[in-house]
């Protein structure tokens, strides 16, 4: 598709700049007013970054492992329950993250509805790194499931049918026919999920708490810096490190998710 070249192209371009310019402003501010260098040397910052990457990646892995079968089932089923579940899965997207955090507490917290059974099993979830993953999973997994669901639903069911008649088992069909066809949708959803998990703040704070090294992810570290004497400059310095890191990964992931070959 060839892009148009009329005067009104200016509008979309301006809108695009709306996203680029503040990011550039952030970087400039950090470099001139902040102390990025000292933050880069600070082990606390790297600790927070390591924690963020670890938890976000774990969240993604769980979302993919558990969410893919769910999305497939939802897309394959025509029953009413499927549509209802799909709608419910969208709820964490609409809920303020803080509310999500409270929701998780009411069930998995020490005094939550599942609190007693869990502690009897020796599992205390809140204030652990696992809790961070749980909070991130709650808010970010729906992004993946939606994308996967859309991908599976958009696929022509005839391909799977033909594969079955060719003698391919369900699993082989899924691996060799379905997945390659919906791969771009899944990859796109994975990127969104990972990004959302990385940036999660409210639910994590409420459910997992904020303790350096154990639960203080990058966003919480940035918040903590903002609230501290270092103020805005301190927060921005850390933020820029996160932005740079995320940017590099986004580019790499994006490359991997665009379809290769022209079977559009």
């Amino acid at each position, binding site marked *: 598709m060839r892009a148009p070249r009329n005067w009104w192209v200016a509008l979309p371009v301006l809108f695009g700049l709306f996203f680029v310019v503040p990011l550039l402003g952030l970087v400039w501010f950090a470099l001139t007013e902040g102390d990025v260098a000292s933050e880069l040397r600070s082990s606390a910052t790297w600790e927070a970054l390591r924690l963020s990457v670890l938890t976000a990646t774990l969240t993604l892995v769980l979302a993919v492992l558990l969410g893919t079968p769910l999305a497939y089932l939802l897309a394959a089923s025509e029953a009413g329950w499927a549509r209802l579940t799909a709608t419910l899965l969208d709820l964490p997207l609409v809920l303020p993250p803080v509310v999500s955090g409270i929701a998780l*507490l009411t069930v998995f917290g020490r005094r939550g509805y599942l609190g007693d059974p869990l502690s009897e099993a020796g599992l205390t979830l*809140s204030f652990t790194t696992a809790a961070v993953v749980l909070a991130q999973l709650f808010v970010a997994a729906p992004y993946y499931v939606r994308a996967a669901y859309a991908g599976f639903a958009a696929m022509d069911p005839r391909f799977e049918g033909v594969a079955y008649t060719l003698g391919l088992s369900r699993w082989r069909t899924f691996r060799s026919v379905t997945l390659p066809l919906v791969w771009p949708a899944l990859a796109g959803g994975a990127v969104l999920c990972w990004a959302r998990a990385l940036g999660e703040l409210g639910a994590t704070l409420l459910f997992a708490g904020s303790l*350096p090294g154990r639960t203080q992810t990058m966003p919480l570290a940035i918040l903590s810096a903002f*609230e501290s004497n270092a103020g805005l400059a301190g927060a921005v310095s850390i933020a820029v490190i996160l932005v740079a890191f995320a940017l590099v990964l986004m580019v790499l992931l994006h490359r991997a998710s665009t379809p290769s070959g022209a079977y559009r």
Partner: protein
Amino acid sequence: MVAERPLVPITRRRWRSGAAGLVLLAAVFLLLGGCGDAHTIRVLAASSLQDVLPEILDDYAEAHPETTFQVQFAGSQSLATQIELGAKADLFISANAQQFARLEADDLVGERTVIATNRLVVAVPHGSAIERVEDLARSGIRIAITAPDVPAGVLTEQALALLDFAIAEEIRAGVVTEDPNVRIALSRLELGEVDAAFVYLTDVEATADLRSIDLPSALGPNSYVAGVLESATADVADLLEHFTSDAAAGIWRAAGFEPVEVR
């Protein structure tokens, strides 16, 4: 013969009254928009004053009925940052001198006035088995404190430094979260997610089913420091006096603060 009055077309008349109406409306809006209305006082106050300050302001308003207040509560360190970034208000009340000093350094605030003091305590549920600070060192106890730069967090550090080193280490091991403000720490305690929280005495007084455990007395109280901001447009001298008056003293005490009386 009566001189005929020149007939003014209806449209012209309507236009005139319409224009007059618009001017009136504009005037009203400008007045309401009130940037720098002398009768509205904007206050930025530490979040631990959330319950007591409105009462004191109401008391003041009875004597000064033309005054209205716009109050914003947040962590003192957060407010200081916002003021540094250009937030405009008339009065700043910080929960400790440290945050106040940040603004003094940049000449953003005027003279200090201490208006009340508070104490840091350990809050536990009413039926808790924890009786003394040392009990916090037991294993399995989960404690919520505030972040190091939050005024309450600064006090917490000072308190721990006053304890026996081994006990302090055990207590630190039981800390599960460093929250951005006291409210969050408190709600964790209320929800039963933690067993104890380092909060203010006034927070314990304000919440049902909690009791307080004293910290070493060598830990001084923290003072609430008020000052007029450089961006102030309203006159707050009377208000500042009111904070340290007898009438206000009763309200401070009832909430658990220690009033400061100016002789």
